[in-house]
């Protein structure tokens, strides 16, 4: 037994085995307890902790803003730029790390920044462990430069710690109101609103980076950075010079007619588009009223402060939205007689018309028991007209008869081909949908067909009209209109070239030539004589459309033309929506506005004069030149063309206005002085036989080396 007992002692006894099982039970109990604890944590605090995790995610990690890409005009002039700004951050933890840091740091802050030092001192004292205090926001480089230079001196700034900068960007529009409808603006979150800013928002906005802050084992805040990728820039088809010419003329038109027949603007809307006929590039697109892109919520240009204060929020934003909307693409209206070339082209192209027809107009025509009047109903109609004369005289009766000959189906088929009722897909935000405001085969009856032939009864947008019109005069190629020709990276490398896109062929080249012939006749013989700028031949078509409801004597007048007459390069479309005058159906207003714009634009574009200039025209041009000069040399608040002003003051007004963008295009000088016009009708100037420079025949000024530079600066 003793032996057995001794062996038991050396062996693991039954008692020990039992105790081991008890121990296992205790361990098991502990595990069960901990499992329950896990379950309780999830049940009681799960939701709260989930939120907490996401909340602190934002707290300790920070988004690094990407630089939003710039927007340039076609010559590389900036239209919208992102400027770097700095937020001044104070890291209290670092400052309080050593006693010796505190005073030098405070002294440096006081010296180099315009901030409330009492607040900073108080904050640093009260939050010794905090690492993030925004002491100043939106500092420019100039404002931080002094400090940065000081920090470069390592001995002087040895004890200055815990100051750093957070980069940010501010959108700046150097030209203020220029091209506001096209560009659009950005909100505080860097999201584009309207125009290119909205349409190309994804391209312009880069990929934001991220900075993670975390606490290491010694509870120091460590930072790691994933840098931001900057956005791409846009090179638009817009020419800032042409754009500013257009906008200045629209404004001056507005100023002439403002408060004339009623209180308010010179017209409900003014719009103008200039387009390159042969590729769909929009060279200028403007509407009035406009707004300041740097301050888009400012209504003070149009309303008194009292009036603004009296607006309810709803009214306030309604007015703003009205301003921000791009009339040229977002609004629809009845085009009126500018539709006639489309109708005629349709008839000729489809073979329903030969061009040799003639029509008799007695002032009105009866379609489906309705008497539809011609525009000169009062004077007994247009008499007998052939097709060309019908366009020149804008005879509704002739056009109605043509449309009935063409028939509804073919007419609608061509409407579709001209893109009426469809979007043009121009690369701007907010293009109007027009599918509901045009006729289709189920709701077009003879009367609707007849009125459609001269542009009443259905709605279009300006961009639709001019894009379609370009196809009528360029040989039938319908180009998709576009605003951006190139997307470039921040370093200037081309990311994407946007090539002209022909969508379809609307008419044949020979029909196109016929339409050009007819439209040239409108300006030489017909309703559009007033649109011709001195020294040039252009073609086009006038339009006068009565708005709804009919009989209110409210009209939209327009001129749609092109230049030069024989080989169209640019197309222009000017729309005056309900001019502020007692008589609104005065198409001459649109014609003269067109003429004013073309008078400045064509020389700038290097399109030569081909026609002799009469004495009267010379005087007008001289007067106009003075007017333009005054516009350029006027005080800053007057204009958007700020960059060149300083240089203008040197020359006399007369000299100052004689050149334009000469450096960019030696032939494109804005030459308006030709008192003793030389024999050479092709160029309009004398040519220096030695240098080839253009010399003003009157003043002897060298046109190519003018000291005046326009908006190109």
């Amino acid at each position, binding site marked *: 037994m003793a032996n057995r007992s001794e062996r038991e*002692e*050396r*062996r*693991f*006894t039954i*008692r*020990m*085995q039992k*105790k*081991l*099982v008890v*121990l*296992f039970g205790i*361990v*098991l109990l*502990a*595990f069960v307890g*901990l*499992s329950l*604890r*896990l*379950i309780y*944590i*999830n049940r009681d*605090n*799960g939701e*709260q*902790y*989930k939120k*907490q*995790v*996401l909340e*602190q*995610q934002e707290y*300790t*990690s920070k988004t690094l803003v990407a630089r939003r890409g710039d927007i340039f005009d076609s010559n590389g002039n900036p239209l919208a730029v992102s400027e770097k700004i700095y937020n001044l951050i104070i890291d209290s933890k670092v400052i309080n790390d050593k006693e010796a840091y505190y005073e030098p740091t405070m002294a440096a802050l006081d010296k180099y920044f315009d901030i409330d030092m009492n607040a900073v001192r108080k904050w640093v004292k009260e939050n010794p*462990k905090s690492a993030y205090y925004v002491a100043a926001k939106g500092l420019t480089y100039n404002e931080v430069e002094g400090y940065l230079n000081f920090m470069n001196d390592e001995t002087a700034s040895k004890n200055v710690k815990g100051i750093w900068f957070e980069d940010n960007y501010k959108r700046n529009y150097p030209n203020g109101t220029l091209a506001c409808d096209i560009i659009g603006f950005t909100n505080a979150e860097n999201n584009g609103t309207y125009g290119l800013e909205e349409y190309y928002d994804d391209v312009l906005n880069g990929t934001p980076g991220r900075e*993670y*802050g*975390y*606490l*290491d*084992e*010694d*509870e120091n805040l*460590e930072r*790691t950075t994933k840098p931001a990728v900057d956005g791409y820039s846009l090179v638009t088809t817009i020419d800032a010079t042409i754009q500013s010419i257009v906008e200045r003329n629209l404004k001056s038109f507005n100023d002439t007619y403002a408060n004339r027949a009623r209180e308010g603007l010179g017209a409900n809307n003014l719009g103008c588009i200039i387009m390159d006929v042969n590729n769909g590039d929009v060279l200028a697109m403007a509407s009035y009223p406009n707004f300041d892109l740097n301050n888009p919520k400012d209504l003070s240009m149009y309303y008194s402060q009292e009036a603004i204060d009296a607006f309810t929020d709803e009214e306030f934003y309604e007015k703003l939205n009205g301003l921000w909307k791009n009339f040229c693409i977002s609004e629809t209206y009845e085009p009126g007689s500018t539709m006639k070339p489309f109708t005629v082209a349709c008839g000729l192209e489809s073979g329903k018309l030969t061009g040799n027809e003639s029509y008799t107009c007695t002032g009105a025509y009866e379609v489906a028991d309705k008497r539809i009047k011609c525009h000169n109903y009062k004077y007994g109609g247009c008499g007998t007209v052939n097709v060309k004369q019908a366009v020149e005289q804008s005879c509704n009766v002739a056009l109605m008869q043509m449309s009935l000959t063409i028939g509804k189906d073919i007419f609608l088929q061509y409407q579709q081909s001209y893109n009426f009722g469809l979007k043009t897909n121009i690369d701007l935000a907010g293009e109007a949908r027009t599918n509901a405001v045009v006729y289709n085969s189920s709701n077009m009856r003879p009367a609707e067909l007849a009125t459609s032939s001269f542009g009443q009864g259905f709605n279009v947008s300006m961009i639709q009209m001019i894009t379609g019109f370009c196809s009528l005069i360029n040989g039938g190629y319908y180009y998709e209109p576009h605003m951006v020709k190139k997307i470039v990276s921040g370093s200037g490398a081309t990311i994407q070239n946007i090539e002209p896109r022909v969508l379809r062929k609307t008419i044949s080249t020979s029909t196109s030539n016929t339409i050009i012939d007819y439209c040239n006749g409108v300006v030489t013989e017909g309703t559009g004589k007033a649109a011709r700028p001195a020294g040039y031949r252009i073609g086009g078509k006038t339009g006068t459309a009565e708005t709804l409801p009919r009989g209110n004597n409210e009209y939209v007048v327009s001129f749609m033309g092109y230049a030069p007459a024989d080989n169209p390069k640019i197309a222009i479309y000017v729309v005056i929506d309900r001019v502020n005058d007692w008589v609104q159906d005065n198409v001459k207003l649109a014609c003269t506005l067109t003429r004013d714009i073309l008078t400045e634009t064509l020389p700038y574009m290097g399109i030569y004069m081909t026609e002799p200039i009469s004495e009267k025209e010379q005087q007008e041009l001289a007067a106009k030149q003075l007017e333009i000069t005054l516009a350029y040399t006027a005080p800053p608040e007057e204009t958007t063309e700020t960059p060149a002003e300083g240089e203008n003051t040197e020359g006399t007004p007369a000299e100052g206005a004689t050149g334009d963008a000469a450096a960019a295009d030696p032939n494109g000088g804005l030459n308006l002085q030709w008192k003793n016009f030389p024999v050479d009708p092709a160029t309009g100037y004398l040519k220096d036989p030695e240098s080839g420079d253009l010399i003003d025949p009157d003043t002897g000024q060298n046109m190519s080396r003018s000291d005046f530079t326009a908006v190109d600066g």
Partner: protein
Amino acid sequence: MAESFSRRKKKTEYYFDYSLVFIIIFLVGFGLIMLYSSSSYMASQKYNDAAYWLKRQGIWSALGIGVMLVLSFIPYHFWERFSTIAYFVSMALIPCVLFFPKRNGARRWIFIGPNDRFSLQPAEIAKLCLILFLASFITRLGPAIRSRKGFWTVILMALPHTAMIYFITDNLSSAIIIMGITAVMLFVASPEYKRFIILAAGVLAAGALVVLIVTRFSDKLGFRGARILAWLDPEAYASDTGFQTLQGLYAIGSGGIWGKGLGQSIQKLGYIPEAQNDMIFSIICEELGLFGAIAILLMFVLLVWRLVVIANNATDMFGALFVVGVLGHVAIQVILNVAVVTNTVPNTGISLPFISYGGSAILFQMAEIGVCLNVARSIELKDA
């Protein structure tokens, strides 16, 4: 037990505990996956190499598995004769840390190799050596263990290590573990219950007293005092001492039942400092949810169960007590680690065996398991 009777075997056939090997390999493999998941972000930030910690732990784990398998073939009685030497050598190693530089603000390591590439914690060696020593010592005590004198002698034997680890290396958690292992081995060896209940009550009372004192005299008691305060109300100390605990709780609470999915933890992105170390269990909870966490706890329960089976079938008391010591070591570390992560006890740095990052720790734990495997091998399979 069941296995030992179930099969008809000759006396010469021995038992190899494949289940235990499987459990260990599973835990180590799972540990490597979780280690990679929890550390890759910070590793790529810090060292530009997402697998920085994974590689190091992988090398140690492979080494550990090799050591485990080798030890499983070395008869464990071979070690018994070194028990006294091991006791004194491990004791002597502890002050050696004073000759090596601090790391993370504490002197706990002995560095060897070029550029201090390998670090060794004497505390880890002490745990293994003390298990070995106590198993042999208690066996030699024989029936004397039943007396009060025997009881206190055993405790006295563990005191030098405990005290040195606490006072020299300032490592409370290792001191607790060593005392805990001693208590567990003593509990199994001694027939007493009453004394242990009194002891446990005493420890709890002392703990309560410490907490009471700390709350009264608040932060005059150094970082341990601060940790106790943070334990009581982690949210009040969210920016400093309570930070780690609170972030761990956020991780656990935000995981839900099924977790965010492997690799989907947010808290590992710098919020939980050194997530691959002591707080790795909170990342397991966040990514794999309650399901994954409890599954891992079950694996540890299985591991403990296998050790219970081996101890109860061991051929002699030395082997059985050694296995009990290892069992105590594993169980105490797992329980304390999970208790710390769930803020059940105040924060003290205890790693999760086989899963947390820590080269020397995993090597010694695997060595312990290797010896246990050999104890299992010596189990004679009796005829049915």
